[in-house]
């Protein structure tokens, strides 16, 4: 059985992390008092704000830098970030939505076969790292895409990359290698 190029694999994006800047200083105390769904972490100096509509948790720093996590797609992340900027505007700050960037995308993919990890590591020597004493999965790094894949023996693969396209390319690249080392009895 050859590795077909038209095998449809479902890549499920579980988390998208993005950052943006409001070009103004934010008074965390005011946000904590007047904002809805906020948690003020005074010791660290940040405010956590949770949105319901796109399920997003935002970390707001007083310098105006905001990190949003929890979205399930890049568009949703942008939509949530804009919503957040809007609600900060409502609170009275002179917010300008700038420097929006998707920083990290985490996705999960399931292969329809089990994978022999020691064999896979041997065949993919410099990129793959397998330490069964520390972690049950093989850590495969693709430098060109800046993506990291964690390959488990059950066939489940967790991919993290800078954007959705890189993640999809990474899965496409890894499929033939993983297919080679799939389980076959004896």
């Amino acid at each position: 059985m050859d590795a077909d190029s038209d095998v449809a694999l479902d890549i499920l994006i579980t988390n998208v992390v993005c950052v943006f800047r409001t070009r103004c200083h934010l008074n965390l105390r005011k946000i904590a008092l007047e904002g809805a769904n906020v948690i003020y972490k005074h010791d660290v100096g940040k405010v956590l704000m949770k949105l319901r509509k796109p399920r997003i948790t935002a970390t707001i720093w007083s310098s105006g830098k905001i990190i949003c996590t929890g979205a399930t797609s890049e568009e949703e992340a942008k939509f949530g970030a804009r919503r957040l900027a809007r609600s900060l505007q409502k609170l009275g700050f002179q917010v300008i939505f700038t420097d929006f960037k998707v920083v990290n995308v985490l996705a999960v993919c399931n292969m329809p076969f089990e994978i022999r990890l020691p064999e896979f590591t041997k065949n993919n020597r410099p990129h793959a790292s397998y330490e069964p004493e520390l972690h049950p999965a093989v850590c495969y790094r693709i430098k060109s895409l800046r993506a990291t894949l964690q390959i488990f023996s059950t066939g489940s693969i967790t991919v993290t990359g800078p954007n959705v396209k890189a993640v999809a390319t990474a899965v496409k690249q890894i499929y033939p290698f993983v297919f080679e080392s799939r389980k076959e009895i004896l």
Partner: protein
Amino acid sequence: MPGGGHCPDCGSTELVEDSHYSQSQLVCSDCGCVVTEGVLTTTFSDEGNLREVTYSRSTGENEQVSRSQQRGLRRVRDLCRVLQLPSTFEDTAVAYYQQAYRHSGIRAARLQKKEVLVGCCVLITCRQHNWPLTMGTICTLLYADLDVFSGTYMQIVKLLGLDVPSLCLADLVKTYCSSFRLFQASPSVPAKYVEDKEKMVSRTLQLVELADETWLVTGRHPLPVITAATFLAWQSLQPSERLTCSLARFCKLANVDLPCPASSRLQELLAVLLRMAEQLAWLQVLRLDKRSVVKHIGDLLQHRHTLVRKAFRDGPAESEAGEEEQQGRGQGPGQGKEEVASSSLDLPKGKRPASPALLLPPCMLKPPKRVCPPPPISTATGDEDISDSEIEQYLRTPQEVRDFQKAQAARQAATGVSNPP
């Protein structure tokens, strides 16, 4: 040689630019007479332009071996001696430590990390020479935390760009088995428990190979599997006397620590052996259970390759349960396999051989119960009030209204022009 200059003493033109410490001098290479010299001290105004260089930025750090580095190198040699490693290993480990120390991240690290770095260098050396040394052993010797050790280890492998081969299982089995104190009778070890080393090691190796084939080793810490395999090997060599001894007691007798997962690995290994036993005709009638199968481990291991092939199926196969399983795979990995595993577990009592089970990693055979959240009941009718924050999404700004009107007009004009006959 500067043009036009000659020594006032001997008259030669061989003048050399040489400096005596920080003073530049022009010296005759024949008689050594100093012809001219530069200024030794700097003036106050010159000194005002000078910048102070901290020790960490100067090159002094790389030229000298600091005290903490010396301590670290001593620790590396001590650790190699404690582990009784060959002398070549010592030199390699020391070289790795020095190489690591050149990186600023390591030089400025805490003492705890530098201590753990000693263990990392020794571990990398052993792995490269296929010497079976586990991280657990090093952590115990250094009184270090495994988390700190793993972080430093991954960092140093990346920093030095090393290719570290994986732990060799066969060598680890031999070393670990030899550490069991069961090869000679002593006050704590009765004669019936004493076993021959060669026989035990070879049987343990076979059991570990079997575990490797049946997904019990992949992704897991190797030591508990080896402990369970050693226990089974020891029991099976004289089952009549040893069946009453438990795993915990065995480890206590052998003076070896019992790792926590070893008992679950033991159960998994026994389950695999039971499955294999069902394929042997003369064992089917005996209706074996987890205790009695130990007596037949010798036979099972002799024919293990054929038995594993017969006892376990490899994905969509020729049996009638194969189609069921294919459908199951289409539905979704967790659900489908649960169905098939349960169907293959209904063993028909009687002469018919059991249908082959799926050879899968144990975590897939018992998928965790996932609580499916009930679908949210949406009672949206469309007549609800829109909050102020959401109203902007539904209203157009004046600019947008103008743009829309312009676009509409353009479209009308376009359809008016290109009206098909």
